């Protein structure tokens, strides 16, 4: 007859049972605690959406979507320049950040070096990208400010009502003068860029208001005024003085960029570049190595493998990451605020590369800090529009992912 070991025989079953019950009780309570804390985030999201919806839904109407900011009357103010501005800035940002980001990701994932020193470099680039992802966006804004807006003042300072900076293409400068019929203007081409005003003393070749070439006549005091309205419209008073008029094409390019659309787009590209690199790398890493090995075994070069096999297989993931990064870009306010300033009064979207522009987050910021209550309600309305756009972008991402999965599967 064997005896039970003392350790087992001496167990007080009831005590053990109550202990076990208590432990399960703790676990149950902990479960409840976790659940309530986890559901807190649902509560916060609901609170956020409901409070902003309550505050802002009333201000959304046709005027709100088509008008521009009105500093006097909140009921006439709208956000159309901001919507156009945000979309265009985002497009510019995608055009620059996507190729560079996806390219770097491919380089880091698919062209891993075997040489010891190159390996070290490779690791350094990788570390550097994770560090870039942790840099606050306002620091990128300051980089954009010094690198794009002022360019360390290498090309001089931009000034109002003067020719400044170094122009490359896309601008025509004239002196604008009022003609005798008081309703049309004539343009004299600018010769000396230091001279910002011009006095007419003699007949000169120039242009009319629509930039068609004309001969500008001069009328001197005491002479009879011409009667023909055509001649009248190209005749100016002697010694009439004209101010500077600059006409830009959309591709106008100048150094430094100034507080411009181009500078804003490039700064935003810097902000989202590390995000794109990291998400594309993850997508590339998820492609099974067997696919690559098959392509390499058939004799394709590494780049042929990437182009024909790896990249198409990783495309859904890359696209999803890119769209999420774009969502981040469209909602990013701090870097754009640093580069463009907080001015929200612009009445149109950006018209050329060097034009200033308003984006939705800047408009929301400008309205939200306005002490007038009705502007704060407009800010809530603008937030709703911004969130709807973000939601649309995210659903496109989800749709793309599913579509691609179906195609490849």
């Amino acid at each position: 007859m064997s005896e039970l070991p003392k350790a087992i025989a001496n167990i007080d079953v009831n005590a053990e049972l109550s202990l076990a019950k208590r432990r399960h009780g703790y676990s149950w309570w902990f479960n409840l605690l976790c659940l309530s804390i986890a559901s807190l985030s649902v509560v916060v999201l609901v609170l956020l959406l409901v409070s902003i919806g309550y505050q802002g839904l009333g201000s959304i109407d046709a005027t709100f979507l088509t008008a521009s900011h009105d500093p006097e009357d909140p009921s006439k103010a709208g956000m159309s320049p901001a919507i156009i501005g945000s979309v265009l800035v985002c497009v510019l940002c995608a055009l620059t950040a996507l190729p560079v980001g996806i390219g770097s990701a491919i380089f880091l994932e698919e062209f891993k070096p075997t040489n010891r020193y190159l390996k070290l470099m490779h690791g350094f680039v990788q570390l550097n990208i994770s560090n870039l992802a942790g840099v606050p966006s306002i620091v990128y804004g300051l980089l954009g400010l010094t690198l794009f807006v002022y360019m360390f003042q290498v090309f001089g300072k931009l000034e109002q009502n003067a020719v400044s900076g170094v122009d490359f293409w896309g601008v025509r400068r004239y002196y604008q003068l009022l003609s005798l019929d008081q309703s049309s203007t004539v343009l004299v081409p600018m010769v000396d860029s230091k001279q910002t005003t011009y006095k007419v003393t003699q007949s000169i070749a120039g242009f009319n208001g629509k930039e068609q070439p004309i001969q500008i006549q001069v009328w001197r005091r005491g002479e009879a005024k011409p009667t023909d309205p055509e001649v009248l419209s190209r005749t100016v008073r002697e010694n009439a003085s004209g101010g500077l008029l600059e006409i830009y094409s959309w591709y106008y390019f100048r150094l430094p960029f100034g507080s411009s659309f181009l500078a804003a787009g490039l700064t935003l590209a810097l902000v989202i570049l590390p995000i794109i690199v990291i998400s594309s790398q993850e997508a590339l890493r998820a492609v099974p190595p067997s696919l690559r090995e098959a392509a390499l075994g058939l004799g394709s070069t590494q780049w042929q493998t990437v182009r024909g096999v790896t990249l198409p297989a990783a495309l859904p993931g890359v696209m999803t990451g890119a769209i999420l990064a774009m969502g981040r870009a469209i909602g990013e306010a701090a870097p754009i605020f640093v580069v463009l300033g907080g001015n929200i009064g612009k009445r149109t979207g950006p018209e050329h590369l060097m034009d200033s522009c308003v984006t939705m987050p800047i408009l929301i910021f400008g309205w939200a800090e306005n002490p007038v209550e009705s502007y704060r309600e407009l800010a809530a309305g603008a937030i709703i529009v911004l969130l709807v756009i973000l939601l649309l972008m995210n659903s496109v991402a989800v749709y793309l992912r599913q579509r691609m999965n179906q195609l490849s599967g």
Partner: protein
Amino acid sequence: MNERITLPTALTDKRFKSTSTSRLSERLMVALLGGFAFLTIAISAAIVFMLVSESWNFFSSDYVKFSDFFFGTRWTPLQVTDIERVEFGIWPLLSGTIRVTAIAMLIALPLGLMTAIYLSEYASRPVRAVLKPVLEILAGVPTVVFGYFAILLISPSLQLISPSFDTFNATSAGIAVGILCLPMVCSLSEDALSAVPRSLREGVYGLGGTRLDTSLKVVVPAAMSGIVSAFLLAFSRAIGETMVVALAAGTLANFSFDPRQQSQTMTGFIVEMLKSELEYGTVQYYSLFGVAITLFAITFVMTLMGQYVRRRYQESYQ
């Protein structure tokens, strides 16, 4: 038997057309992609160069003393117009940042970690299907929206609880920043928790452990490096957060640790300075780069530490 074997022409004629061109295009592509990768290094270099050269303009000015900057408790470049009497001491801004960040971390770290534990250890499939998208949506909400939320709802609620809160105060900004960091803490910690192998959990269950024992005594310690690195990244994000504090934390730079008062943070000061009329080139304007380099140094150290912790203390189960 001694018949000569003739090779197929494809093998004798070895002038494969594609080889030379594809080798060239291969080289070109590698160079291009490598150029893109080095561009990211150039960006880092540009950030450091920009911060150092522009803040040098500030630190080398006659009106600024290094010791005053790091130990001074008054910061008045926006309030005092006479440059002789402006005081540059970083501590008011630093104390503002510390107040806001501390409150944000008090919210984001415990809540984020608990949510992550729930998602990885307890949640059933349907609960997960609700919680995950909610957290993703929260993570995608622009920061300026949280700033608006802070002045719309959080600040008035705080004032309702206790009238001693200012309209703009560190607590409401801190709560909003905390909400903003929560999804990040949660998803990073959850990644770390779910990377812990199943066998460890099964071991605990086999020994008679409850879910509480499993999650708190085994899974969380095993994932500690990932969790700490998530905390550090969230901390660095909270310090650099701009739009929320610009809207909700107020514009008064005072050296205090009272969370009910206004508190201008480092990022908040940069925004205020850019809004002001001061010209590029004045000492006051350059002071923003002095603040920015301090901010960059803090976040950079945090990020590096986060990566170090994750790599150095990562437990591997092979």
